[in-house]
């Protein structure tokens, strides 16, 4: 039963004619005549392929960091430009989550938190300003729009951020699904943190429980009756990160937020960019009981599930305990934990110690659950 519920949850029908089974011909490469597939929006290998082949080809300047620009080629959470002795960090995100209202949040909160968090992941926790661009389907309820905007306003207040510019478009009924929100943000930081700074010996910290957002959305979509309702963790965490960096901003060597593809995805990315191996202690991972329950029943590993209010950080060994204390002292970091270590062996690979033995965590092909963020 579990495997089949999992399949019915995970299967995204290929609506645009791309063959689902490939009839024995397998290929990752996107031929120029092929059509864009849903998989290419899932945040994994296929999407990276599309970005590298199409977008980088068009936009990459590929400058080295010394020249004062972190560009598209770095594929980090944001781009950055040096201004004097600081960095101007900028980022943008579009949000297409379905359903727009879910336990613990909505698309508005997600849009603001997502951009604020991407800036924070680069070490830029004081937001200068945000933009908000919406495309709304004709017929969308006015009161739903106002609810979303109110949620965005509240989330901005939490983050200490303001929307300074925006755009509004309406498309005809059926031309777009409900509402799509794009946000962009800018911030300044003296100390830039990338996602490629992992070094052997660094400790890996997650700032709280994993898998909450994806499982909450999935449970809602499939009407799973739960004893303890599960809520998304969607929240702006720039305040939490500021607290962690306060004592020693150089203690954090790399950082990323585990959205699509979950913690597994960011660990893979960080390990391969840093050319180190990662070993995670499964027993140290903080997981809510309800998430564990759904995971057992449906067979989806919490490591692979999206989070929207968490960070994965690599911290210098000598500073790890202190950073952990700072995180735990903050309301959003109560369940922070040291979950693993970086090694020289097996660069680019993520190993999980289950308590019985070790196994690899395979790189997720992309987000398992469609329309998750």
């Amino acid at each position, binding site marked *: *039963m579990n495997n089949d519920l999992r399949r019915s949850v995970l299967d995204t029908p290929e609506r645009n004619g791309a063959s689902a089974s490939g009839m*024995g011909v397998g290929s990752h490469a996107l031929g120029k005549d092929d059509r864009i597939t849903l998989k290419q929006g899932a945040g994994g290998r296929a999407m990276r392929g599309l970005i590298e082949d199409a977008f980088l080809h068009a936009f990459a300047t590929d400058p080295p960091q010394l020249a004062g620009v972190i560009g598209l080629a770095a594929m980090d959470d944001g781009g950055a430009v040096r201004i004097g002795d600081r960095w101007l960090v900028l980022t943008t995100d579009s949000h297409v989550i379905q359903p727009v209202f879910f336990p613990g949040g909505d698309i508005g909160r997600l849009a603001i938190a997502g951009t604020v968090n991407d800036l924070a992941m680069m070490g830029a926790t004081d937001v200068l300003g945000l933009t908000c661009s919406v495309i709304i389907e004709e017929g969308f309820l006015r009161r739903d729009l106002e609810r979303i905007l109110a949620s965005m306003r509240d989330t901005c207040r939490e983050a200490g951020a303001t929307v300074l510019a925006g755009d509004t478009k309406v498309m005809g009924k059926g031309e777009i699904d409900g509402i799509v929100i794009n946000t962009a943000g800018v911030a300044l930081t003296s100390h830039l943190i990338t996602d490629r700074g992992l070094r052997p010996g660094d400790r890996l910290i997650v700032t709280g429980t994993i898998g909450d957002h994806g499982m909450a959305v999935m449970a809602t979509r499939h009407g799973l009756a739960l004893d303890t309702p599960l809520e998304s963790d969607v929240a702006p965490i720039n305040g939490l990160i500021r607290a962690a960096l306060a004592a020693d901003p150089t203690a954090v060597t790399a950082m990323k937020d585990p959205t699509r593809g979950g913690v597994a995805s960011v660990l893979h990315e960080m390990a391969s960019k840093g050319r180190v191996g990662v070993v995670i202690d499964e027993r140290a991972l903080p997981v809510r009981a309800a998430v564990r329950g759904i995971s057992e029943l449906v067979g989806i590993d919490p490591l692979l599930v999206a989070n929207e209010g968490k960070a994965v950080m690599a911290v210098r060994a000598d500073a790890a305990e202190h950073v952990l204390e700072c995180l735990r002292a903050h309301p959003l970091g109560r369940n922070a934990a040291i979950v693993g270590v970086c090694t020289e062996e097996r660069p680019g690979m993520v190993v999980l110690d289950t308590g019985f033995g070790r196994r690899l*965590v395979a790189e997720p092909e992309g987000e398992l659950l469609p329309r998750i963020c």
Partner: protein
Amino acid sequence: MTGRLEFRDPDRARALGGALEQAVAEVGRSPVAVMHVCGSHEQAIAKFGLRAAFPRGLDVIMGPGCPVCVTDLPEIDEAFALAMQGVRVATYGDMLKVPGTAGSLADAQAAGAHIDVVYSVAQAVDLARETGDEIVFFATGFETTAVATAAVVLAGLPANFSVLSAHKFIPPVMEIVAEMPHTRVEGFLAAGHAAIITGSGVFEPFVARHHLPVVVAGFEPLDILAALVKLVQMIRDDDHGVANMFPRCVTREGNRNAQQQLWRVFQTVGGRWRGIAHVPNGNLRLRDEWAHVDARRRFTIDVAALCDRAPSTLVRQCLCGNIMAGIAQPSDCALFGKECVPESPVGACMVSSEGTCRIWHQYGGVPNLGASA
């Protein structure tokens, strides 16, 4: 719940691992090869990293225990042909992407056929009642799953529902494996869930005939380790019996109620299993008195048009048959992880969540990374 955590206690697991190592040493020859015939066993072994706890001198081979993987091309083709003839087909999610001669059910869906993924046959029956559409349930799975199909048949089906049975029966295939000339299997781990239905007694004729021990095993880490200890001890002692190491769920007689329902509805016939050619009494078909709900008799299924396609070059390189018979590993296959990946599978072993190749791929393709820290 039900002492689940006790069956995952790492200390007891370590102790059992030690006992297993000792038992293997006592057998006095190396390697000792045993086979399990259950996808869920392989899943558990991979997920918990149990291979790291197995001693070097022990080979735990996965045999033909994935019901999806052993569903042969003609059966997939029947379902595919029905779907393309315009009949609504309901099936378990794993079957969606298994390649047939002309394509998978997912391909049929992309071409406009109506396919429903269900997690229970009862759900498919409800669908027929609610919609009034003619629905064929493509019934796959071993005896544990076949009993559910039997139960709905006996409970009374609506006129617009029929069953296309591709169910299989495990004990006969153990005979085939035991009789294979190049087999080095010295004992079997039997699937605990199937044994709940059939009882551990079903293996008594087998052990008498082949002088090979059979141990019925559960699915938690301790269950699997303890069962292996017992199996290797029986090999050491030349003990050709059946041992039940899952007594909390399995009895010698099994579930008589379920058995009666199974055999009232189904009979065994010889048939093809993918990769294993002919298995006498290995397939379950509806008895004549159920002809009126048998899709094969209700419909004229035209597979002729599909049969004149030659298998592609890739399909010819596929090692699924040997992998399922336990004489090759996924890593022996040139296509594994390259042309053959879950998004574009060549063979059934890469499609099913219980397929050896799929499981290995999911866990990084490396089965044994060594012991826990």
